[in-house]
């Protein structure tokens, strides 16, 4: 297997202050994507102070000693660029995209806001309202209330217990001083990866990065709270009541972290179950049983073990317990190794093609490079797959997955004791809490 086209032409270096720099020069489109990734997300937070990583992301648009409030957006605007940021369990990432004749403002802004963001108290207060509104949008959405409960139930100790946006009560209690202290703990070169992808000259750019970032001190050694979620000993079940015309189901199984040897078989299982209309969940639940409007299986890469989860949105007149039972039957087929070779081949090709189809933009490629530099760093990740090299070995490992490995992974992770089952039911009617299938 050749190297992934995404990693072709990638150069990586680490500055003396610990900043990881990844560049990918490509001249087919006159644009440049610049991203900076900090290895800090809700995983680094503590109970009572949840949501700080995400809130901090908002504050980084509020100005620095060099750029006054609104100026970061205005520079982006006048140059016809785009900027935004996102925070999740394991990371916070910021990006700019610019036409390639005017992109270097992005580097200057990131260098400034890494250490010199201002935390004006009045800015903090109004932004707190904005973040609270963002949280409310989630609560009004169809899935978030159920997702929050399932993750909070499945993870008793580990910080994946709370949602990235945090708990409303913690946000209300947050102060500007808390936020500044959190920033001072995590926003340093040694916690960051800078990725530049697009139409530029690598030699010049690396020199410019050294000039702008090289002077910043490495920052304190900090690591997230070392919390290991103990094995789940028995199924957990929960019900969320909410005014809704549509009942929903979410089943989460504890599943391994990025780079774990079993993770590749689970990725193939995810595609077999859920990618496209020929997938098993679609064929079973939408086509055959006709009990749902949609059903999915999802498994994301995270630094720590997370959840492999199933979601279904029911059609009226069907029962959550029956849909749960049908999903369990499909899982049982995997456990028995009842998977023809054509189906695993298809799943592998889907994984390979989707990597290509979702990488047409420089920003999409920068996102993959930055994400794996940030999450696939730990010693448990095999040396040849660490950092962005994860993308080089991914397809090879996926190609090597056997039917037996899928069956073994299904037997190991998709057990009754290892799962948390959540039902979302209409709050207006008292629902019956029915039991589903046995594992």
């Amino acid at each position, binding site marked *: 297997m050749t190297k992934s086209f995404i990693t072709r032409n990638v150069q990586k270096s680490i500055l003396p202050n610990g900043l990881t720099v990844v560049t990918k020069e*490509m001249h*087919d*489109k*006159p*644009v440049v994507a610049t991203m900076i990734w900090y290895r800090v997300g809700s995983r680094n937070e503590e109970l009572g102070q949840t949501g700080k990583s995400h809130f901090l992301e908002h504050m980084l*648009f509020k100005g620095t000693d060099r750029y006054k*409030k*609104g*100026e*970061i*957006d*205005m*520079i*982006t*605007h*006048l*140059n*016809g*660029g*785009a*900027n935004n940021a996102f925070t999740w369990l394991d990371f916070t990432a910021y990006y700019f995209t610019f*036409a390639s*004749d*005017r992109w270097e403002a992005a580097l200057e802004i990131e260098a400034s806001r890494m250490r010199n963001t201002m935390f004006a108290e009045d800015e903090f207060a*109004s932004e*707190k*309202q*904005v973040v609270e*509104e*963002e949280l*409310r*949008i989630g609560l*009004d959405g169809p899935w978030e209330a159920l997702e929050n409960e399932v993750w909070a139930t499945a993870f008793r100790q580990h910080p994946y217990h709370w949602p990235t946006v945090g708990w409303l009560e913690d946000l209300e209690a947050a102060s500007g001083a808390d936020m500044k202290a959190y920033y001072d703990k995590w926003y340093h070169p040694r916690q960051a990866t800078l990725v530049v992808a697009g139409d530029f000259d690598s030699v010049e750019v690396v020199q410019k990065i050294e000039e702008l970032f090289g002077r910043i001190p490495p920052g304190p050694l900090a690591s997230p709270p070392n919390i290991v979620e103990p094995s789940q000993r028995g199924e957990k079940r929960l019900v969320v009541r909410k*005014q809704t*015309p*549509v009942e929903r189901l979410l089943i989460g199984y504890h599943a391994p972290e990025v780079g774990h040897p079993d993770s590749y078989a689970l990725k193939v299982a995810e595609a077999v179950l859920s*990618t*496209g*209309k*020929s*997938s098993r969940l679609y064929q079973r639940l*939408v*086509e055959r049983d*006709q009990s749902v*409007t949609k059903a999915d299986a999802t498994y994301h890469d995270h630094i720590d073990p997370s959840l492999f989860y199933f979601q279904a*949105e029911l*059609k*009226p007149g069907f029962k959550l317990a029956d849909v749960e039972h049908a999903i369990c039957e499909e899982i049982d087929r995997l456990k028995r190794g009842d998977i023809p070779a*054509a189906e695993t081949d*298809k799943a592998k*090709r*889907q994984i390979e*093609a*989707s990597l*290509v*189809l979702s*990488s*047409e933009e*420089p920003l999409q490629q920068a996102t993959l490079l930055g994400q794996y530099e940030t999450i696939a760093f730990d010693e448990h990740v095999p040396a040849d797959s660490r950092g962005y090299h994860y993308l080089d070995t991914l397809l090879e490992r996926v190609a090597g997955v056997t039917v037996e490995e899928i069956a073994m992974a299904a037997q190991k992770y998709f057990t009754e004791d290892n799962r948390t089952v959540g039902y979302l039911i209409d*709050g207006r009617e008292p629902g019956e809490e029915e039991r589903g299938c046995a594992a």
Partner: protein
Amino acid sequence: MQHSQKRTARPKLDVERVELPNGLVLLLSENHSIPSVSINAIVRAGSRFETDEKAGLASLIGALLDAGTTSRTSQQIAETIEAVGGQLGTFGDYQSSGAVVRLLSKDAFIGLDVTADLLMNSTFPDDKVHQEIDRRVAQIKARLDVPRTQASDVFNEIVFKGSPRHRPPIGYAETVKTLTRADVEGFYRRYYVPQNTMLAIAGDIDKNEVKGMVEATFGKWLCAAEFGTPEVPWAHRQNVPLERFVTASKEQVNVIIGHVGIERNNPDYYVLLVMDTILGSSPGFTSRIPRILRDEQGLAYSTFSNITSSAGQDPGRFVAYIGTAPENLDRAISGLRGEIMRIVEGGVTAEELEAAKLYLTGSFVFHFQRNSQIAEFLLEAEVYGLGFDYLEKYHELIRAISVEDVTRVTRKYIDPHNLTTVVVGPVDEHGKVIKVA
């Protein structure tokens, strides 16, 4: 503050337009940066050609396009595309319907073959029709779970009264339930014809080779002897203010304020693009509504306005949106109305205009990054007669706009005294905030 005055980086597209003898228009653009291809096929028919009684028909057909053809079952269609890792989507929207296939370029022919099959030979098996109707009735219900969608649906019913645009393209539970296979077949036979079809293919292809493939597949499609499309009535802009409050048990109130907008071919489209950029549509907090209502007042996470993004063959809508906590409802409504009034009465500054022009010209290149975006642009250029020199012309059109143009056009198309206001959330029918259980 810094920005470049250099000549703007411009996208370059190598475009070829071919009209097949049966009337099908083929648009090709070749680039080899990524080994992928996007095949976008549209027929120019959608829910704008339906009657109220048959609301949801075009959308239903769009969803059923891959439900079976004369030579393939639905599962075989899915397997054919997915076995090579491709992604197939079919749709029926307001003004167009069709299929989009994205796949690795080595598999382009498979994508073309299936796309042709769907547009030419769909059979709409009875069981699939019933199954899809059943599913859609559930999906229509689920729309009530997304308050912004609910608010948008209510708003459209009011402002587009008298035009097919008042309906959600997916239709209503009551109308969708009554649709039959004969309805589906009739619409498909009438509108899915080569002279009403456009095919755009962009990506890592050899144009000549693909032309041959298209001739081998779509070339066999016989053109309809007679083909015509119905007149579509346009909605009139209201001349009174209207308000509607819808009670829903939600954390936020979702507010939409606006009225009927413009069609894409309106000559003032570009001036309104500038107006949108200044009032409420530029990213970040550079435009007025997000800057003032979000960044300064902290009222919302999401707030914006625009008139151009919904402009199509028929007029779209001018909307200003905000989602906020119920206690902020009055401030939010008066904030949005105040900004609409201010731009109509006070116009814009030369500095705002200059910034908007720099943004619009500088960001143009980002519309052409992905093959699917390029294919969509080719179709848009064909539907609206933009010309493939649009990539150059666009910059001139934007640069020529003056402060006076913005003032004149804003006053012409936006009426701050006669707006529709829709609120969905914990409010009673008079707009008073209530506690909903």
